[in-house]
């Protein structure tokens, strides 16, 4: 059986399926009548042993991988083996005749309640540990195997409805060979993760969960955008040959990594990377890239259980700046809201989160939060070349307000004799049609801008990029996007300011020639696509690219644009 989806890279994977669904249960307290108490106690003990075994195995795997997240396992084990709770559960089973799962739920809930009401924050936080252990126990009681992406037993292809940022905080990078999701498009979180891991992914594969079973072998064909369920031996053999061929091509591409990023007649195109942290494999590649075009600072907030302190942020920013040394690092200030939730911030649920309180709006409404990030950033600016960029700006005033806050914080640091880079560049993301249309009115006040094409496309097309039903309306190649970019490029060129692109379009092999033709000279993308981008750029003839740019802006549909870009790409000779 074959299902189709959108592929993010021309790679193939043949592996076992791991169906990823988080365990959920309905809370119910039930009494038993016919069953034997001793049997119920036995069931409880078996459940506990199973949970303990899981924790021990998890700890062993985490330690083997040298992870520093192994501490929580010990805390969970202590809770699981706690003698007081254990006695209470046993008593509820024998005296109140509660089923083991009900007795467990009742006891844990009692202490979760006690801890949550405690005045001390450290104790309140422990309630979350109790909840985790409770879920583990109930899952074991129901006989449902553990699903986690942080430590897997063997290589697999993950099949899920969709992966959320919280699912992907710690991924077992070694064993995840591919991702297939029912929802999401080329700009979804899953796509971003798959690109950074450099693995094939197929997105928007309708109803795939109904057709695949855990542990069965499937073929993910990223070249043709399809998944083959229950493949024949011949098919597997055929694809194994293809994998070798694809690997060879990728090897050729990798050789471009160390070459300079210039077009045929010598125009330099700066290639920067999008990052969430200072990744170790960036270090060796730094000589071949032109800095960081997008440092997504929100990942610091998403990976913590509480608001990261100024000091914690400072250390994180400083590390990145030191790793990139002489190359610029564009820090995007906190961009949450929209599809990114931070539980501990307790933000209200919005009807239209993409049109809601997100990005710089949220920061301007929560000054203390914003101030602590800016303080951390400015302090870090003494250790490298930092540039600060505000997301989701819609008007000149928002930028002025945000910049004023930066200046205030700077004065504060001066009065405390803390060093910071007084020439720090301050710019904006261009993601909203409003700011794109008045770019000429703000260009003199900002130092630079970067276009977030994912959001800009969704706002220009009025199509939610998370909503599968309007997928057809979210058009990466809508002519409006290219017209908008062309006009921005002209404005910034006249003003002599840098305009970069940091959305997925910047690393799209088909789009790169037209972006260069339009006049964009800085592209920021995931590290894994840099080598291929260099390969493309080195084959671009500037005159032809300019003609392409003009042509594309006159096309009437995204399909026409796509056809035209494909023809152009095919004619790029190596």
């Amino acid at each position, binding site marked *: 059986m074959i299902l189709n989806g959108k592929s993010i890279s021309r790679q193939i994977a043949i592996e076992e399926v791991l169906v990823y669904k988080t365990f959920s249960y309905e809370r119910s307290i039930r009494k038993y009548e016919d069953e034997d108490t001793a049997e119920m106690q036995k069931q409880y003990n078996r459940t506990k042993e199973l949970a303990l075994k899981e924790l021990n195995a998890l700890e062993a795997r985490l330690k083997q991988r040298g992870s520093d997240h192994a501490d929580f396992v010990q805390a969970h084990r*202590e*809770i699981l083996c*706690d*003698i007081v709770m254990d006695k209470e559960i046993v008593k509820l089973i024998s005296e109140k005749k509660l089923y083991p799962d009900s007795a467990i739920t009742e006891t844990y809930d009692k*202490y979760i309640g*006690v*801890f949550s009401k405690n005045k001390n924050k*450290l104790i309140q936080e*422990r309630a979350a540990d109790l909840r985790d252990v409770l879920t583990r126990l109930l899952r074991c009681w129901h006989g449902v195997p553990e699903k986690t992406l942080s430590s897997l037993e063997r290589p697999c292809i993950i099949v899920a409805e969709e992966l959320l940022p919280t699912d992907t905080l710690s991924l077992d990078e070694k064993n995840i060979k591919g991702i297939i999701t029912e929802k999401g498009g080329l700009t979804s979180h899953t796509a971003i993760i798959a690109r950074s891991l450099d693995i094939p992914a197929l997105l928007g594969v309708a109803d795939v969960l109904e057709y695949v079973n855990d542990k069965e072998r499937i073929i993910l064909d990223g070249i043709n955008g399809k998944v083959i369920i229950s493949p024949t031996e011949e098919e597997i053999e055929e694809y194994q040959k293809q994998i070798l061929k694809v690997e060879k091509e990728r090897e050729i591409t990798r050789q471009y990594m160390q070459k300079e990023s210039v077009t045929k007649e010598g125009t330099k195109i700066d290639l920067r990377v999008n990052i969430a942290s200072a990744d170790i494999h960036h270090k060796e590649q730094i000589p071949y890239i032109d800095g960081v075009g997008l440092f997504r600072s929100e990942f610091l907030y998403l990976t913590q259980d509480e608001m990261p302190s100024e000091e914690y942020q400072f250390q994180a920013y400083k590390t990145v700046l030191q790793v990139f040394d002489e190359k610029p690092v564009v820090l995007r200030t906190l961009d949450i809201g929209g599809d990114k939730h931070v539980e501990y911030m307790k933000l209200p649920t919005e009807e239209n989160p993409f049109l809601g309180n997100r990005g710089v709006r949220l920061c301007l409404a929560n000054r203390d939060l914003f101030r602590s990030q800016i303080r951390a950033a400015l302090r870090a600016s003494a250790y490298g070349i930092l540039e600060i960029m505000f997301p989701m700006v819609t008007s000149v005033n928002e930028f002025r307000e945000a910049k004023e806050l930066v200046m205030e914080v700077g004065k504060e640091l001066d009065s405390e004799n803390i060093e910071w880079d007084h020439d720090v560049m301050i710019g904006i993301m261009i993601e909203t049609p409003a700011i794109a249309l008045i770019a000429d009115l703000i260009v003199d006040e900002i130092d630079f801008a970067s276009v977030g094409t994912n959001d800009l496309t969704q706002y220009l097309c009025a199509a939610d990029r998370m909503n599968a039903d309007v997928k057809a309306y979210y058009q990466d190649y809508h002519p409006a996007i290219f017209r908008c970019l062309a006009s921005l490029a002209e404005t910034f060129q006249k003003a002599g300011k840098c305009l970069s692109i940091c959305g997925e379009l910047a690393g799209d092999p088909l789009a790169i020639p037209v972006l260069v033709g339009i006049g964009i000279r800085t592209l920021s993308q995931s590290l894994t696509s840099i080598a291929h981008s260099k390969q493309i750029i080195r084959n671009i003839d500037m005159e032809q690219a300019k003609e392409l740019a003009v042509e594309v802006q006159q096309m009437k549909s995204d399909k026409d644009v796509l056809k035209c870009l494909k023809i152009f790409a095919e004619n790029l000779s190596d």
Partner: protein
Amino acid sequence: MYSKEIIVSNPTGLHARPASSLVSKANSYESDITLQRVGEDDVYTVKSIIMLLALGLGQGEKAILAADGPDEEAAVNELAEFIAGLTE
């Protein structure tokens, strides 16, 4: 029965890591071991992390550490010394 008054001096108090260590140490003794906040009636077993957290002794608080059993003296003396030596 043997007991001693202790005072919690480390900044985080008896939760998080210090509490975990205390529980695992307490479990190495045969005696029943308890803590009782000075001026309060409730007695909490030191062999349970849940109870220790529910008690939630913070920095500067005083409590009675008591043990009852064959190794009661050693238990109280050694655990009191452990609590006094906490710095975290």
